[in-house]
């Protein structure tokens, strides 16, 4: 195997971002979320080292990097999902609209309603499609009465692009849907509570290319409404859906900038090597 490492790998052509995505909205307002010097420890092991990233409204931020580089760990800091892991310890400062999310004044339940999450494996509740979407609004008291709830469910499913496929079988189990439909159901569930930020942890890694294309299309449509952060293994996907890209390696943030810059003209050697497929 040592022989193959020394042979020169023909440099693959880096995926070229679509022209529309390269046009950035003007930097007229402050970032939605602001992370400064975030370090995460699992026991004695440091998984993330002093990462600072801003996440903006109306923009998709992609986190890329090889497995175990800390990108999912960082994502889970943004809505404090790491609190559920007993051995995890987070240091640093994260602000949502200028509020410290780790402060005593910030209620973690409210935070997670404002910063929603979509997971790697589709994980609908083993309940009906309707109940899956209605659960969040119900526990937060967002709907007064059945008709308002119906409206929220319909709106959320429409935004997630699932309404046409499931409108006649809302009482069927959410787990009976196909993988791609389940993931869109999870997105509908996340947007039903009207979050400001949506975090997506490799949302397409368990899906086939057609379902993946649908989710990517959906991310494009949702971009105008929510700040979106997405973790992905797939560099083409990062190039297609995001405006900003952060490259992580071994727990460190190597490079963060416009997606077009990262993919065509990265500053760091390691970024260049990764996106051209030399490792990862």
């Amino acid at each position: 195997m040592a022989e193959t490492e020394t042979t020169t790998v023909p440099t693959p052509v880096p995926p070229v971002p679509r022209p529309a995505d390269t046009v950035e909205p003007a930097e007229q307002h402050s970032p939605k979320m602001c992370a400064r010097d975030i370090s995460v420890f699992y026991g004695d092991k440091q998984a993330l080292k002093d990462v600072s990233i801003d996440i903006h409204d109306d923009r998709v931020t992609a986190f890329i990097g090889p497995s175990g580089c800390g990108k999912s760990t960082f994502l889970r800091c943004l809505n404090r999902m790491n609190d559920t892991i007993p051995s995890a310890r987070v240091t640093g400062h994260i602000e949502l609209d200028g509020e410290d999310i780790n402060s005593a004044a910030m209620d973690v339940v409210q935070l997670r309603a404002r910063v929603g999450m979509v997971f790697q494996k589709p994980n609908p509740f083993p309940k009906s499609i309707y109940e899956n979407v209605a659960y969040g609004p119900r526990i937060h008291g967002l709907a007064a009465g059945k008709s308002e709830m119906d409206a929220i469910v319909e709106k959320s499913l429409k935004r997630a692009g699932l309404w046409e496929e499931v409108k006649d079988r809302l009482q069927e189990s959410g787990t009976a849907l196909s993988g791609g439909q389940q993931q869109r159901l999870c997105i509908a569930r996340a947007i039903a509570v009207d979050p400001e930020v949506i975090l997506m942890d490799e949302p397409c890694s368990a899906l086939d290319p057609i379902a993946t294309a649908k989710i990517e299309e959906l991310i494009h449509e949702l971009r105008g409404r929510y700040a979106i952060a997405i973790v992905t293994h797939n560099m083409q996907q990062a190039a297609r859906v995001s405006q900003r890209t952060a490259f992580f390696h071994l727990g460190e943030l190597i490079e963060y900038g416009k997606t077009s810059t990262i993919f065509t003209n990265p500053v760091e050697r390691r970024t260049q090597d990764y996106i051209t497929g030399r490792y990862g």
Partner: protein
Amino acid sequence: MNRPDQSARLKRRYASERRFRAAGFFAVSLSALFLGLLLGNMAWKGLGGFTRTEAEVTIDFARSDLMIDPAALTGGQAQEVIGSADLDGALSKAATAEYGPEAEEMFGAGGSRALGRGLINDSSLLQRSATLWLPAGSKLDGAYKSEGDALNERLIAKLDAQDKVRLRFNSDFLTASDATDSSAVGVWGALKGTFLTIVVTMLLAFPVGVLSALYLEEFASRNRWTDLIEVSINNLAAVPSIIFGLLGLAVFLNFMHLPRSAPLVGGLTLALMTMPVIVIAGRNAIKSVPPSIRDAALGVGASKMQVVFHHVLPLALPGILTGTIIGMARALGETAPLLMIGMRAFIAAPPSGITEPATVLPVQIFLWSDEVDRGFVEKTSAAIIVLLIFMLLMNGLAIYLRNRFEQRW
């Protein structure tokens, strides 16, 4: 492809598969055989307990020594009046007059009870002579069903010749309670005591067990104390049941001074015994709920308690119920701890509440199996059949509930 060494390997593989299947089939057949033997034996011996021998006798009430005022039998004190009258004596006299001196003990307590009921139903009998079918005493019953002593065999032969003896369904066995005369005993008192005890056990052990399991699994932090509690609970599940009886005796009777022999104390003691089983099964069921469901609920902003009660508990419930069934079935068949807290007393009346003296079916079976009177042999087996049916009904209900709560994904 068909190399010789490969075909030999294949042959060996199929042979070992066949051997394994044969061994498994043998094991299952063996257990089925023993189960069949047990049930068959019970049914064979016990079915006799559900029938009774009845004999015909003519009593001339007008000329008997019964000093009963017919008017008193219509009031509320009818039971007392009947209870104080010498029905045994009247029966004995009538039988001797009809069938000779051998028939002196022909009717037992069951016969007198039936006669008393007949008089309350129709007080006009007291003015005339009547011919009645009454349950025979245990010795005559035994002689008619199988074999008895010489005296009763002669009596049976005489009755049979005149067509004055018959076999009927023994409804008293299901409605009466314990008695000293085997012809008059029934399981109703023990059945009711069992039911009350199990209800107390269920009401205590299920919520406490499930809440403990939830707390330990979902809320408690992992440290030396929770480890200690976990080890203790696992050990508690393996403690011999008689130890729980001693604990119940020391704590509930000697320290808290709760009533002796009561379903309340029995239920408390059995709850102590059942709870660890429910906790262990509950923790395993909760552990097996996929973490992705917890993440999903947390991700939409559910609080810890909402996650647990809206998602984890409903998904874990079938598993918890399975553990509960096992624990309750064990409690239902338990004898030893109940002996320690005095539920082995002779109780002739069914309990009317959880603080009344009572006994339970397994203890009743234990007591009857110890009796000298041969009539108790078939009653013991019949009581075992009742206990098995009660257990089957309870488990059936639990399985029905479990299937209803089962959610598939």
